[in-house]
């Protein structure tokens, strides 16, 4: 259980902003911070990690106060025991993949965790390579594994997948979900991608101007009208074509492409690149065993 109240005046590119948020996260939940850039999502992660100091507030993790402004408690990043995956991965260029993981070991910690993590994120063949010889997705996996070596209870992911292509992204989402469940982590993810959020998170905090504007389970937060269709996916419009009296809209859902028949009235405010929900009744799809 993480309870956090954070106040901090931030200087951003567009001027100063007051960060004023309250988070309450159950153990084992995967929670997303969502919002346009510059609303303070990364700052929240950094404050939780102790890399940035808050002006005032409290952070309580499983009953222990990491930060209590009034009682002058402020744990250093070293004391907080968290896993943190940086946007630029922050792998140490002077160490191999394996050495990066070993560096994270605590004194006297069982080394088996290294083998375990290397096999979970499928790095066996890359373990003796230096990070700068790896692809973005591979570096990301190393960063994820390294963050878990100390067996933290809390995992913080700062837009971990933003630099990756769609196919890689979906694979890494699966890795993150896998470790999240396997190690019973409480995970906080910063993400822009609605599809990713709906796929991964139990709860989403929408932020605007340093404040939480909406909280809830991801599906209901992103679908303003609650729809009864049970067959729902979020995707991105990649093509709109006119066909006789109807239109065919091509939507990319994860790495699958689906096509949907639409009416003129439905596509007037739809453009390529828009996020849409594709919904159908549970009665319509047929299942074929493969």
């Amino acid at each position: 259980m993480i309870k956090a109240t954070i106040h901090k005046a931030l200087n951003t590119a567009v001027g100063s902003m007051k960060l004023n948020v309250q988070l309450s996260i159950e153990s084992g939940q995967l929670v997303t911070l969502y919002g346009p850039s510059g609303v303070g999502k990364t700052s929240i992660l950094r404050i939780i990690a102790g890399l940035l100091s808050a002006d005032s507030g409290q952070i309580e993790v499983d009953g222990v106060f990491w930060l209590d402004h009034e009682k002058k408690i402020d744990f250093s990043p070293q004391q907080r025991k968290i896993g943190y995956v940086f946007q630029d991965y922050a792998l140490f260029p002077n160490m191999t993949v394996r050495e990066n993981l070993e560096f994270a070991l605590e004194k006297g910690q069982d080394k088996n965790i290294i083998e375990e993590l290397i096999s979970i994120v499928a790095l066996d063949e890359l373990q003796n390579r230096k990070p700068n010889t790896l692809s973005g997705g591979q570096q990301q996996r190393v960063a994820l594994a390294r963050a878990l070596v100390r067996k933290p209870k809390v995992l913080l992911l700062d837009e971990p997948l933003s630099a990756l292509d769609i196919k890689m992204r979906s694979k890494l989402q699966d890795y993150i979900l896998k470790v999240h469940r396997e190690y019973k982590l409480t995970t906080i993810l910063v993400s822009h991608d609605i599809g990713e959020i709906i796929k991964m998170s139990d709860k989403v905090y929408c932020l605007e101007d340093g404040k939480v504007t909406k909280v809830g389970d991801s599906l209901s937060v992103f679908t303003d009208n609650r729809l009864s269709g049970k067959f729902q996916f979020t995707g991105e419009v990649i093509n709109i074509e006119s066909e006789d009296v109807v239109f065919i809209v091509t939507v990319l859902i994860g790495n699958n492409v689906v096509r949907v028949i639409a009416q003129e009235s439905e596509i007037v405010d739809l453009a390529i690149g828009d996020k849409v929900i594709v919904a159908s009744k549970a009665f319509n799809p047929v299942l074929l065993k493969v």
Partner: protein
Amino acid sequence: MIDWAPIILTTKLALVTTIVLLIISIPLAYWLAYSKSRIKPIVETLVSMPLVLPPTVLGFYLLMAFSPGNSFGSWLQDVFGIRLIFSFSGLVIGSVIYSLPFMVGPIQSGLSGLPNSLQEASYVLGKSKLKTLFSVLLPNIKPSLLTGLVLAFAHTVGEFGVVLMIGGNIPEKTKVVSIAIYDEVEALNYSNANMYSLLLFIITFIILLFVYLINGGYLKRFWK
């Protein structure tokens, strides 16, 4: 035939100076790279002063400070029995101050050039600042360290003004190559002066070439 003592002395001075510089420059450069202190610009300015100041100015003030006729110099002599003036230790101190920017500069810019996230990643992995400095930061600025080491060494080899002011011209004690050259010219021994000069020229050329080869990645490519 030339006297080898100045060459040995120069090499010894440059080596000792470089080692002392490395030890004091790492913490100083670290502080300059990461501190947000208000006195940082002043410290930065002081460190860079030897770049623009005539070496004789520095030498003159050090001579004044170390002179047993002054309170600091006499205190040193009375309490520690150290006489810095016209001695090898005095030369080392002078050279360290004189070459400080050549060591601090590259290390500081190397550290500032590293992404902050490397340091932060090490902290969230539970590692102390010291461990982070030695295991993460320094190994990733090896080219800067090498540049600093070599520039400081080469610069010490080539100094003249500071050495002459503090050290004077005592054979086997403070008479380094640059002073020996001056001496030989004064005595009209042009062939000896030429020998010393040529030696210095070749040594510094080789050292600098070595840095450019390594830092330019030429050696690595050549070995592959």
